[in-house]
């Protein structure tokens, strides 16, 4: 995998960030929109590995920060942390079509919220509120539900491919 793939993954995730903030803005449950871009990021960084995943995570995080009211670097930080964690387990787990994608996205969404809460608390942001909330459960639920479909779609369009033997 060369640097072209980093840009390709970044472009796809960036496009979904734009799509979910415009076209999908009215699809929400109690104000929570499906974070498809994040779900793609989860599989993308796990496929790319820690280093390349972190670069992708950082750039896409910055894109989110530009479009959000969040402090610049907020989403970038969270994406980099999650990318390094998921990238480090590249090739160490077998990813089946349903269970593991759901599990990966569930844990990643939880971590995203957790690191978001920690950062907002550190920077005394009023939006920090409570960590355990109905919003957390809804977001985990929606993202986990979408995980197998997104994973299958990414495989179908060859954004991620089955691993080569030497990677195991």
């Amino acid at each position, binding site marked *: 995998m060369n640097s072209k793939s980093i840009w390709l993954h970044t472009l796809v995730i960036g496009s979904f*960030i*734009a799509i*979910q*903030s*415009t076209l999908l*803005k*009215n699809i*929400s449950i*109690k*104000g*929570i*929109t499906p*974070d498809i*871009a*994040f779900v793609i990021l989860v599989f993308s960084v796990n496929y790319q590995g820690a280093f390349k995943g972190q670069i992708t995570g950082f750039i896409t995080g910055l894109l*989110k920060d530009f*479009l*959000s*009211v*969040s402090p610049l670097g*907020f*989403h970038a930080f969270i994406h980099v942390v999650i990318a390094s964690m998921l990238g480090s387990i590249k090739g160490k787990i077998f990813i089946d079509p349903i269970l593991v994608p759901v599990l990966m996205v569930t844990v990643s969404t939880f971590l*995203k*919220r957790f690191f*978001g809460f920690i950062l*907002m608390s550190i920077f005394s*942001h*009023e*939006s*920090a*509120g*409570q960590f355990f*909330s*109905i*919003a957390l459960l*809804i*977001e985990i639920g929606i993202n986990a539900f979408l995980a197998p479909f997104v994973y299958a779609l990414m495989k179908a369009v060859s954004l991620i491919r089955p691993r080569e033997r030497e990677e195991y």
Partner: protein
Amino acid sequence: MGRIKAFLTQHKTGASLSSLLILSFLLMMFSTRTFVLKPKEIGMTVLSGVQMAFHTVGDFFKDTVNSIEELQQLKTEYAALQQELFDYQTIERDYLALRHENDLLKQQLDFSQSLSFLHIPCEVIAKDPGNLFHTIIINKGTRDGVEKNMPVIAYQEGFQGLVGKVVETGKISSKVMPIFDASCYVAARMKDSRYDGLACGAGIGSDYILMSYVSKRAKEEIHFGDLVITSGMDSIYPKGIFIGRVRNISAPEWTTSLELEIEPVIDFSRLEYVFVLKAEQNEQ
């Protein structure tokens, strides 16, 4: 002659029967005078019966052939009508959508003309891409005169309701923090009882606004459904803009004030057009 005589003699019973029958018949004919024998008519009747039979058979085959042709024609016409119906349905849908948009824009225009403040009409183009923050992105920026901390209102269901404030501006777009964001504070007042308080968003996942610092003495005077407006006190928000309606009142023992749950008058899920207010009064 001899042979006839011999035949009649031999069959005399039959011959007499025939003769008598014919005779009786003739007598009846002449006595009644109603029986008129028309051989041509009889022949025509018989033949027309045959003709009718042929005609019926011919008609049957003709109708069958015609039916097949008619069926094909009907099928074509049905397909054409179905297409026409689909076209009309599309036109009707477009018409309804245009009428709805027209009504909406007319409302917004009427509202825009009635506003006492100078304002910038904007369209909502996006929302926050993540779920950790609330942002509404509008299609006007510094180029159109939008500045940070300008109040944003909208017109829905006959109410001019508070949407939030501008928190970031770009050249062609701006970010608006909605009032239900936990970091958005608004000086509020009960419209009828005139008690003051501070409204603040309840955060992500909540569909209400919390109004605190309302005196406990107000408990008897505040009712469910009461309207809450901006007080205009030491605030960027002008006075008298609707925020929402009281939907729950609580009086915790550990505080000296009431806590009110306010349901916003603006339905944020179907927010399309907003107005950014400038500080100057509209002189028109």
